[in-house]
């Protein structure tokens, strides 16, 4: 039983990171119809930026994080939107999918070229002590990761639901034309979605890299899990991303320990298949009507 609880908690920590990436993906999809295949690399890049600021520039981790967020907002938020998404979005989903695939290759290989293919350790913002709660050993890092992820999702939810800007963003997601008629600056709202995506990716990098280590191809599986988390939870619901992420993280750990470690990576797919057969809109999603 204690093993089980430890697996669940560690799984929730990983799942929390999936959820942050998934949330960014969902936001971009809602705001602009962008299917971003460079999602995993957008978590990988801030991790290496932070390492650069720590090891080369000599900043402390918190300052390095702030600096990395700054670069991420400019490059992965604004730059991504202006240079790639804006010119391509009117040509439909597929050219953009290909462009983000190309972007993912370019980001991965550039990091490999600059920082070599070596695996690098990454400092954690939490201490590495183990707490003993009734015989169950839980690490402070895992608890902290879950708390930060949940807090971020709750904060974002509050921003989208309670503030004027957040509601304007939701209006754009639901009906672009109506939002224009209401005098909302659609382009600015879409830009906000890109900036939030970059911020979420940077936080996910800060939380997950101490456990999974920094490597140029660390985004491959991370990106994929985040897609699944987003669809399992529901494409058009931000709490759905959290639920999907946690579900994938925990189930992976349990299957890896009790069923087969070789097929651990297939868990997210199995969940995804079950969900799209029985509840295609996702666990917390709502059905979207087709437009003729």
């Amino acid at each position, binding site marked *: 039983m204690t093993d089980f609880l430890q697996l669940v908690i560690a799984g929730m920590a990983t799942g929390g990171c999936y959820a942050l990436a998934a949330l960014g993906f969902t936001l971009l999809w809602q705001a602009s119809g962008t299917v971003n*295949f460079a999602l995993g690399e957008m978590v990988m890049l801030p991790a290496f930026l932070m390492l650069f600021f720590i090891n080369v520039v000599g900043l402390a981790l918190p300052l390095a994080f702030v600096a990395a967020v700054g670069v991420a907002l400019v490059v992965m938020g604004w730059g991504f939107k202006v240079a*790639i998404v804006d010119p391509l979005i009117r040509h439909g*989903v597929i050219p953009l999918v290909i462009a983000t695939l190309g972007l993912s290759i370019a980001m*991965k*290989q*550039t990091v490999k*070229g600059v920082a070599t293919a070596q695996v690098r350790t990454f400092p954690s913002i939490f201490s590495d002590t183990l707490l003993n709660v009734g015989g169950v050993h839980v690490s402070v890092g895992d608890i902290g990761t879950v708390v930060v992820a949940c807090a971020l999702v709750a904060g974002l939810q509050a921003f989208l639901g309670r503030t004027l800007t957040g509601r304007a963003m939701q209006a754009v997601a639901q009906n672009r034309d109506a939002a224009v008629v209401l005098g909302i600056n659609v382009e600015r709202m879409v830009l906000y979605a890109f900036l939030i995506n970059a911020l979420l990716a940077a936080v996910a990098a800060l939380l997950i890299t101490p456990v999974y280590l920094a490597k140029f191809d660390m985004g491959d599986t991370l990106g*994929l899990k985040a897609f699944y988390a987003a669809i399992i939870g529901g494409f058009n619901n931000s709490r759905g991303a959290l639920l999907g992420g946690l579900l994938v993280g925990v189930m992976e750990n349990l299957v890896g320990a009790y069923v087969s470690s*070789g097929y651990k990576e297939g868990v997210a*797919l199995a969940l995804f298949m079950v969900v799209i057969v029985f509840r295609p809109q996702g666990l917390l999603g709502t059905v979207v009507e087709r437009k003729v």
Partner: protein
Amino acid sequence: MKYLRWVALLAVSVALYFAPGQMKSYGLYITTLWVVYWIAGVGLNLTVGYAGQISLGQGAFLGIGAYTAAVLSKAGVSYLAIFPTAALVCFAIGLLLGFPALRVQHHYLAFATLGFNMLVFLFLRNEEWLTGGTFGLNNIPRPVIFDVRFTRPLDFYHLSFVVLVVMGGVMAWLLRSPWGRAFAALRDNPIRAESVGINTTFYTLMAFAIGAAYGGVAGALFAPLVQFVEPAPFSVANSLSMLLMVIAGGSGRFFGPAVGAVIVVLLPEWLRVAQDWYLAIFGVLIVLMMVWLPGGLLSLPDRLRGRRA
């Protein structure tokens, strides 16, 4: 005019058939690989370009075809039986996979196929009794058909090229048939297609499964070409480059995959002078090309004509 096209097509075919005669073995290998990818691309072009579905699982079908060929040929089965078997196995798996995924909107198929590819990769890596695990299967024999041995690289290239011509011919016939019209209707306006009585689920499923079967045939050539199969070439990354191949060449254009296969198979070889950076440059080129030419390379003439007008 139409006459001229056939003559040009015939001339190019003959040229391609004889062109690699003087090549060294590595050049010949790459050229044959280009033909193999072209075949897989013809199938994927049906799914993506003509029927408008995003599939990210062509690498898995290539793998299923390759492992089918590897296991059967090592058991002594003739390649005359292996090609249809590989195609049928992939067709059947394509039906099974497409059925749940196509119940929902089309970008779900992208994720379903992506995950399917991952699962196939895990299966190839974990089920050592059948696939040899990470060590793979080696010493795959080259085909012997009607006592003709296709062992030498040049002979094998000729065999691959003939398979390409046959598969391309079947595809051209299919696209001119009423089925081809139905596929295009599906892509251009699925709701309208449904309202004029086209069974959209059936045709989408067929487009996907036939595309998968082409992947299987390409795989059945891939295994004897390399003479060694392991899970790595059939990972998600390869499926992504296959999709890239179709889109970059020009999706929904018959010769799009040929141009696309040049980009995916040959361009990285030419960029090798850039050493460690060649894949990074490759990625940047893809982004730039999509931004400038979203319709793929074969849309270049239209684009230039449009500018002048």
